[in-house]
């Protein structure tokens, strides 16, 4: 869409093997700043793995990934890649928010503590300052007043909205979502997608792995179909989802649209 905006994600030839099993076989991915990219594909095709490579939760075996123009996990020096120290990787990760299928909120902390932990530890904010931001974020995800609740006292949809707020609290430049609504009861999916729609409208760069085809159709600037560790097709949703070129895309779409 916005081809002139700088690249937020630039992945080239990303290869990832688990033991002898290739899971990503040379994936290229471009995401411009302010764009929403939805990654779709069959189960086991490597969508989660690709997302985890983007913030270096997984080390890649070949290729390179740049986030906002800088390599992730490595430093280039005289034509060679040097692994970064944990602390340096952690600082880079703070620029990338991640939302998990299983929420992964910290169950022993209140909602407020979940939201202020990283801003204080990573961004060096004062507690009062972080709490003010937390209140704003809670308002943004529609959960004002739930500061003192523990995550398990909330519904799945509420927990996922807190998880989104927690990721936003570190002020990331890029947000990664790994099937954020797959663990939710159908009636709770809408509230989470609504928050994500708002976020997209506010100009956040997002990479979303999802099975919600209608969300992809309405919100995505680019849809990427991953199958067996390869990008099969990518382009605007109107093309990829409505009028795909590749037979594998058509096969996948016919399978997901049957149960809908």
């Amino acid at each position, binding site marked *: 869409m916005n081809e002139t905006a700088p690249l937020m994600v630039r992945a080239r030839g990303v290869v990832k093997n688990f033991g002898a099993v290739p899971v990503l076989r040379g994936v290229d991915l471009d995401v411009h700043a302010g764009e929403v990219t939805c990654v779709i594909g069959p189960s086991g095709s490597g969508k989660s793995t690709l997302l985890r490579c983007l*913030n270096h*939760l997984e080390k890649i075996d070949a290729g390179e990934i740049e986030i906002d123009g800088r390599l992730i996990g490595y430093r280039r020096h005289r034509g060679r890649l040097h692994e970064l120290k*944990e*602390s340096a990787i*952690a*600082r*880079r*990760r*703070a*620029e*990338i*928010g*991640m939302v*998990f299928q*299983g929420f*992964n*909120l*910290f*169950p*022993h*902390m*209140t909602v407020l503590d979940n939201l202020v*932990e*990283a801003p204080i*530890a*990573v961004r060096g904010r004062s507690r009062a300052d972080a709490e003010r931001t937390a209140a704003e974020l809670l308002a943004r995800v529609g959960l004002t007043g739930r500061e003192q609740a*523990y*995550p*398990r*006292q909330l519904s799945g949809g509420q927990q996922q909205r807190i998880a989104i707020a*927690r*990721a936003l609290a*570190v002020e990331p430049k890029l947000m990664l979502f790994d099937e954020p609504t797959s663990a939710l009861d159908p009636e709770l999916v809408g509230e989470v997608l609504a928050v994500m729609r708002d976020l997209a409208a506010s100009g956040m760069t997002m990479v979303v792995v999802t099975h919600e085809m209608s969300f992809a159709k309405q919100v995505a600037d680019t849809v990427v179909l991953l199958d067996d560790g390869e990008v099969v097709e990518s382009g605007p949703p109107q093309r990829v989802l409505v009028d795909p070129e590749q037979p594998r895309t058509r096969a996948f779409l016919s399978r997901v649209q049957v149960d809908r």
Partner: protein
Amino acid sequence: MAEDIASGAIGGTVADPPRPPDSRRPAPREVVPLRHPGRWIAATIALLCCGFALHSVLTNPNFDWPFVARYFASGAVLDGLVVTLWLTVVTVVVGFVLGTVLAVMRVSRNPVLSSLSWGYVWLFRSTPLLVQLLFWFNIGALYPTLSIGIPFGPTLQTIDMVNLIGPTAAAVIGLVLHEAAYAAEIVRGGLLSVDQGQTEAAQALGLSPWRTFRRVVLPQAMRSIVPAAGNMLIGTLKGTSMVSVLAVEDLLYTVQLVYNRNYRIIPLLLVATLWYVIVTSLLSVVQYYVERFYARGALRQLPPTPVQRLRSRWRAVLAAPRRPAPSGRDDP
């Protein structure tokens, strides 16, 4: 959700005064409870047995309760109790600090550290504590002197091992090293019980590995560490009695010294037993509250403590002075 429905259905009768929505006391009904004669008979027999045992304990003159009472709080016994308590505290605190280090080494990605930790636990768990205590007590036979100096270089000072490691030091070293091996396994079990997603979420937020461990993993691991550690603490309290073989004057050794003089073995052993029981009971109460602390957030609603339960029952009694006694089951 279910609670709303339940309280709505029950609170729905017109005659009922308005109640706070979470009070789930059922409206009084006429129910003839099922009788359980078998239970009554079994309970009576069990109580009779207890009664006989208690009677014999109280009346058998060989227990000599007045004598027990005289020695119970005597200076020597209390001194012994203090030694037992500080040995326990030092053993558990230092043992668990070392154990946590060992557990972190074990789960680390460094194969050398991991193997060292494994080897330590293997060695110290496969020899009896008694043997380890005697070993440290006799370490002087193995290394008669300790030299302080530059490794492979000149020696600055030489100390006799026998002077350095007396009975108390041998007891502390032996207890701590043995405790650390078990504590390492307890802590490791706790660390493994924390879902990997927690670490990933912390990493994704940019938290450092140390902060992730301290703020995210360890507090959640505590939930499974505390019950096992409480068990271990009580075991250690009693395990310290083994240092009496090194003539360290702990609770047991103190009463042994006394009965070696006056031959009142049973009453003096009772004195020690009573103290062990009292301290263990106190520790169990502490453990209950520590467990509750680390259960924060793990349960939707913490169950009330026994004290809270008593208090709410007491308040209910005060609030309804002239009502007939509530039947059997009561509100939580």
